[in-house]
């Protein structure tokens, strides 16, 4: 029996008058890759951003329902958003390293959360870069600008940056959409490795990618969760007609 890391109950999201997510119920298993698929504009990125409360940054956003992580609702008033986001790391569509050195990028989150000791910083930066399969490529240029790296390296750096603060969950928002095939392959290999230690939720519009890397898959359309289950089952025997049409490329 797999343990459920994130349990979403009756989640609704509005941007102003716009009802973006409609009554989502889903349970995301621990230490596995869950892919969220769906046509553009179906709300999959917005869903992801509900899991670390990034939608809080949008003035018009309004959320109802519950998101339980390890049984605790992250929308409780008592929850410290800063600590929540430390536990739930996020990597974005386009690589967005800060205009700082490689080292400072990875150390950024650590410093924010109060790590000041130089030795400890070094250790954890190295550890995060190794975990992100990037160490060998950047160990000689730790203090060069992160913007000098290639797109794929930048994206793995962003993952390292997220890993450095030792999260439990990693949210990936179409992380390969700006990358070439080779970089994408490296990234997928990395995700494969990371799921041993982390719970991973990845949003993707790439069906093959979802099939390749995910253990579970969710299909969203027009703000509703149409289907959720083991990836293999969803791809071989979808229960819903709309899932089937999407997977066979009839819209999207």
């Amino acid at each position: 029996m797999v343990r459920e890391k994130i349990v979403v109950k009756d989640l609704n999201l509005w941007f102003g008058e716009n009802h973006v997510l409609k009554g989502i119920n889903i349970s995301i298993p621990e230490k596995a890759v869950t892919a969220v698929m769906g046509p553009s504009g179906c709300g999959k990125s917005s869903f992801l951003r509900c899991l670390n409360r990034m939608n809080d940054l949008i003035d018009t956003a309004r959320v109802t329902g519950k998101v339980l992580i390890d049984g605790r609702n992250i929308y409780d008033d008592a929850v410290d958003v800063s600590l929540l986001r430390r536990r739930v790391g996020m990597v974005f569509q386009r690589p967005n390293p800060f205009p700082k050195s490689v080292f400072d990028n990875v150390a950024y989150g650590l410093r924010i959360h109060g790590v000041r000791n130089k030795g400890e910083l070094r250790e954890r930066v190295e550890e995060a870069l190794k975990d992100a399969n990037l160490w060998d490529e950047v160990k000689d240029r730790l203090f060069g600008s992160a913007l000098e790296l290639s797109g794929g390296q930048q994206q793995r750096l962003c993952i390292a940056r997220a890993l450095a603060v030792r999260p439990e969950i990693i949210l990936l928002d179409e992380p390969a959409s700006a990358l070439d095939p080779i970089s994408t392959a490296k990234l997928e290999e990395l995700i494969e490795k990371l799921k041993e230690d982390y719970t991973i939720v990845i949003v993707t519009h790439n069906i093959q990618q979802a099939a390749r890397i995910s253990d579970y898959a969710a299909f969203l359309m027009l703000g509703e969760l149409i289907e959720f289950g083991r990836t293999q089952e969803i791809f071989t025997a979808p229960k819903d007609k709309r899932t089937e049409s999407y997977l066979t490329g009839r819209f999207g």
Partner: protein
Amino acid sequence: MRRFKQFVGFVVLKTSVVVGVLFLFSLIVVIALNGARVLSPGFLLEFPREGMTEGGIFPAIVGTFLLSLGAVGFALPLGVLGAIYLREYAGGGRLVRIIRTGINTLSGVPSVVFGLFGLAVFVKLFGFGVSVLSGSLTLGVLILPVIIRATEEAIEGVPREFREASYALGATKWQTVKGVVLPAALPGILTGAILGVGRAAGETAPILFTAATFYTRHLPGSPFDEVMALPYHIYALMTEGTEPEHQVPIAYGTALVLLLLVLAVNFIAIVIRYRARRARKW
């Protein structure tokens, strides 16, 4: 016929640019040629002598240096913090609109009115007297809008993705501003500060009654001393002297020093902005 009209039109437009450039050019040439004759190390490093008809302009250079640095020292922190509020914290309500109108209006106030304000408030009300401090504060108020605008522009240029990445790591707003937004906006803010120095160094009317004096035998020993300043020195030499044949050449030299200073400062600002724009990969 249409072609001819277009030809004439283009010539007129081109002429208007040429006139402006020519004017700037002749101003620089006239001042450079005449000013260069008196320019020497002694001119820069000596005190004036013989009732301002001989000697150098050292105290005026020092005075201008102190006044403009003082002004930026006062306006930079306030302006940067204010701009951060406007760009990162304020939601764009009524208050922000009022503040923006205030900044715009402040930047349109005639410089001589700043001088009167400084006279009434800093010199008289606060009792700072005619002094470096009063002059710096007056100039600081004058360049505040310059700093705010430059900072706002710089902050606006920082991509949203940087902020998101920082928030996603659990950073608070202030941590994000301090750790990501300000470093990325630094070249723009620096440009603003430099432009502020240039502006403050060249202003005369605001220091006329708040800081400047025609002649001192000493450099200012404290912020409460009055100072000589380059722009005021030019004005005084041209209007208050009794021996124009000796004073006009000194005025030329002073004008050249001031012009070089201000142009250099602006040039540096332009270069920083240009290089920052080119180096920027985001």
